[in-house]
């Protein structure tokens, strides 16, 4: 489903590790139980020397837990870890790395205010006791060349891109002598070119006889990079396959446990807007500042239409966050006007936008869509606590609030043991579904969905897309932000391209020129010149 990934790189499938070699690491019957949840249920998993072994599964299938057991972050409740055939158990990640097993987590564990070189030398037994900044930078440079990972030793972590931070994490692990590298969803933070660079580095690492465990729920990239694929579902191992001979749909079926429809373009909306009605929302010459007070949006002209999905394409960081916030009243305007259903909005106010029937699935649900430490009920009523029956005058009716939470959970098909538990105890996918359902309830005229499928597995993505389409068909104007052009082309009726805070062009999705859109996303026209 990702066009960003170069299919030609799939040649790696041809590489085969010696199937008869004894595995370097072998997990036998690993079981890990959390209160109320069996995260791993008697899972077997082998890693051979010189292979890239993918661990595939939906969110919450137990992939990260299994690797956290291997690296000593969790202790298994049952099962055995064999390292080179010897039973072993790691008490801490430091012991795992000492035995040559290093893990790169989805959320990097680097110190923002330190330089690359300092991060690499931090807590490393081989760091000399007395050493100058220049010395560790030189040492870092030598390491970077040795492992062919481009990093700038003197740069501070908060100055460098996510891709470079990931290289620092990898270098940190390799410098400590890792022969087994575990990567948890490594491409989630990378641009397509960065992902290509990463895959190249991983293949080099494998070529030297080392092993890689590649955790992912993205079928295309798993097929592109791995030699073997272990599939987990609901904490159980359901299959181990050679990558050669697998197809995305085989993997998807194994992963989800049912037949899923992939990549289906939806039929156009049956909704017919009444020509006399004003558009649900119009942005006129809108400009806005980002959090640091710098211009983020300039001269935005945008008209939303009832019963259509408007896709916003663009590379991340070109004003998407600010545009989604302007559309939902969260961010004040610097200039220009917003006209909702024919009425000019005097000033931006999310409560007023909510009352006007504008829903908002935010980019980062844990940061802005939910209060993680509060209960599921509290989070479920975030949009409706001012409206009866949850609101009773100035009071909150807890009975109605609980009923609303149950209703949203039921609509979202999320099973919840206790509605009093903090919402952060739910998996990311379930949080996203709850937020989406909550917002759909109030989205009577507009739904702004920022990266609604990000971090979701195949099954959840399909559910989410079904939500959006159903909403569109009921006459709601849907604005969908995505970095995946293919997804937008499949789903949207129109596509607007955002680059450096400007709308570069708006296209009908049907018959759109993908090449032209791709160029505009990079700030270039078809004729090669840069757009001012």
């Amino acid at each position: 489903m990702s066009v960003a990934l170069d299919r030609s790189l799939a040649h790696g499938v041809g590489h085969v590790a010696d199937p008869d070699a004894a595995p370097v690491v072998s997990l036998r019957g690993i079981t890990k139980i959390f209160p109320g949840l069996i995260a791993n249920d008697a899972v077997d998993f082998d890693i051979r020397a010189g292979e890239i072994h993918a661990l595939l599964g939906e969110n919450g299938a137990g992939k990260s837990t299994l690797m956290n057991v291997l690296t000593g972050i969790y202790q298994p409740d049952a099962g055995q870890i064999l390292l080179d055939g010897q039973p072993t158990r790691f008490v801490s990640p430091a012991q795992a790395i000492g035995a040559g097993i290093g893990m790169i987590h989805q959320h990097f564990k680097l110190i923002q205010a330190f330089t690359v070189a300092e991060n690499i030398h931090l807590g490393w037994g081989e760091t000399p006791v007395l050493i100058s900044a220049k010395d560790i930078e030189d040492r870092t440079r030598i390491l970077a060349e040795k492992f062919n990972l481009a990093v700038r030793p003197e740069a501070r972590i908060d100055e460098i891109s996510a891709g470079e931070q990931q290289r620092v994490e990898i270098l940190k692990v390799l410098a400590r002598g890792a022969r087994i590298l575990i990567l948890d969803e490594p491409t989630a933070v990378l641009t397509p070119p960065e992902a290509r660079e990463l895959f190249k580095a991983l293949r080099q690492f494998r070529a030297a006889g080392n092993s890689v465990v590649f955790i992912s729920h993205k079928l295309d990239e798993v097929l592109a990079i791995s030699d073997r694929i272990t599939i987990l579902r609901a904490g159980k191992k359901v299959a181990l396959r050679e990558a050669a001979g697998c197809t995305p749909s085989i993997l998807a079926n194994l992963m989800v446990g049912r037949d899923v429809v992939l990549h289906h373009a939806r039929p156009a909306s049956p909704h017919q807007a009444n020509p006399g009605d004003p558009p649900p929302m119009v942005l006129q010459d809108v400009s806005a500042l980002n959090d640091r007070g710098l211009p983020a949006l300039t001269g935005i002209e945008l008209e939303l239409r009832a019963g259509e999905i408007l896709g916003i394409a663009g590379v991340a960081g070109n004003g998407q966050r600010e545009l989604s916030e302007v559309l939902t009243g969260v961010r004040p305007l610097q200039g220009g006007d917003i006209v909702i259903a024919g009425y000019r909005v005097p000033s931006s106010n999310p409560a007023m936008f909510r009352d006007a029937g504008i829903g908002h699935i935010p980019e980062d649900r844990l940061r802005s869509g939910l209060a993680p430490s509060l209960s599921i009920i509290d989070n479920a009523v975030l949009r409706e606590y001012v409206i009866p029956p949850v609101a009773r005058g100035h009071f909150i009716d807890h009975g109605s609030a609980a009923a609303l939470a149950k209703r949203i959970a039921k609509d979202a098909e999320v099973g919840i043991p206790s509605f009093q538990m903090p919402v952060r105890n739910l998996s990311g996918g379930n949080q996203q579904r709850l937020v989406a359902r909550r917002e759909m309830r109030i989205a009577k005229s507009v739904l702004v969905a920022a990266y609604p499928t990000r971090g979701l597995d195949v099954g959840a993505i399909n559910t989410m897309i079904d939500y959006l389409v159903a909403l569109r068909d009921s006459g709601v104007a849907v604005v969908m932000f995505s970095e995946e052009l293919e997804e937008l082309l499949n789903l949207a009726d129109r596509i607007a391209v955002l680059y450096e805070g400007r709308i570069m062009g708006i296209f009908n999705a049907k018959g759109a020129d993908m090449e032209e859109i791709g160029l505009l996303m990079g700030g270039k026209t078809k004729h090669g010149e840069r757009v001012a």
Partner: protein
Amino acid sequence: MAFRLQRLPSVRPEIAVAAHAVAIGLAFVVGGIAVTISGHNAFTLAAKVLTASFGSEFGLEDFGLLFGPLMLTGLAAAVTLRIGLWNIGAEGQFYIGAVFATGVGLFFSGPPWLMLTAMFLAGGIGGALWILVPTLARAYANVNEIITTLLLNFVAVLVVNYLSTGLWRDRKQSVLGATARIPYEVPNLSGSLHAGILVAVAAVVLMALLIRYTRWGYEVRISGANIFAAHYAGIPVRSRLISVMLISGAIAGIAGMLEVAGTVHRLQGGISNNFGYLGIIVAVLAGGSPIGVVFSGFVMAVILNAGIILQAQGILLNDVLAMTGLILFFTAIGEQVAHYRIVATHVVAQEA
């Protein structure tokens, strides 16, 4: 086998209660060893503390006179914690509440019920005014409220000293500057235990209900849990922040009014008894929960009351302070330890 600690994201309430109990128990064990070394019988002393606190009318009154203000200042600190802010200035708001109440009580006259109501309101207004500048600075200029509220405590002490030894000084009292005796007194319940403790309980219950059952309280909780989510939902965070801070200041000011009109009857330096600072500890031990303030305020009142009893038994003040510190120290550690559980592990086999 080896053991390691594992941190849990949230603590089950029964575990938290057990951790507190164990912590207090440990502090008593250490304190007991210390007094035994200093030549006292720890068990006799412990029995003494219990009988003196809860077995006599005097002890119960003293306990109540500590418990009431501690609940109020604890509540003042706890409500700001609900919106993620720290009111370190309850001490100053307590004093200024006492100043306002004293001013009304000394310079106006009327029927007692009316005057006490006026003094009550004046105390609340005084406390709220004293937190007003830190509140506005926080709301509009994002100035850290910890520093501003703290610094105003020192100003409040100077204001009280200025008034009690200067402008409002009673020419008859010696040794220490104090105002004349305020002719209006909070009615007593038993002996010298006045009705302030009922006000404190009512305030705790009222705040707990407000936070749990009103839209305002919901908005405060969301704002405290995730300010970005609050903005996203269109909650007027700034206005909630202002109201919470002012309420906090008013509660501390009312505590000051009750102390001056119910217990001390004159405005003079030192009447706060550090209740403002102790309230921060009470609130932290309560985990920011208004109802929790009742329990942690109770523990703190027992500790403070025990301190006086122990001094009468010949334990030196410094040793009593050390023991008080020890109990709070252990409780704070217990709070953290409750987040961990011990898991058994095998020692790693170190093969190549």
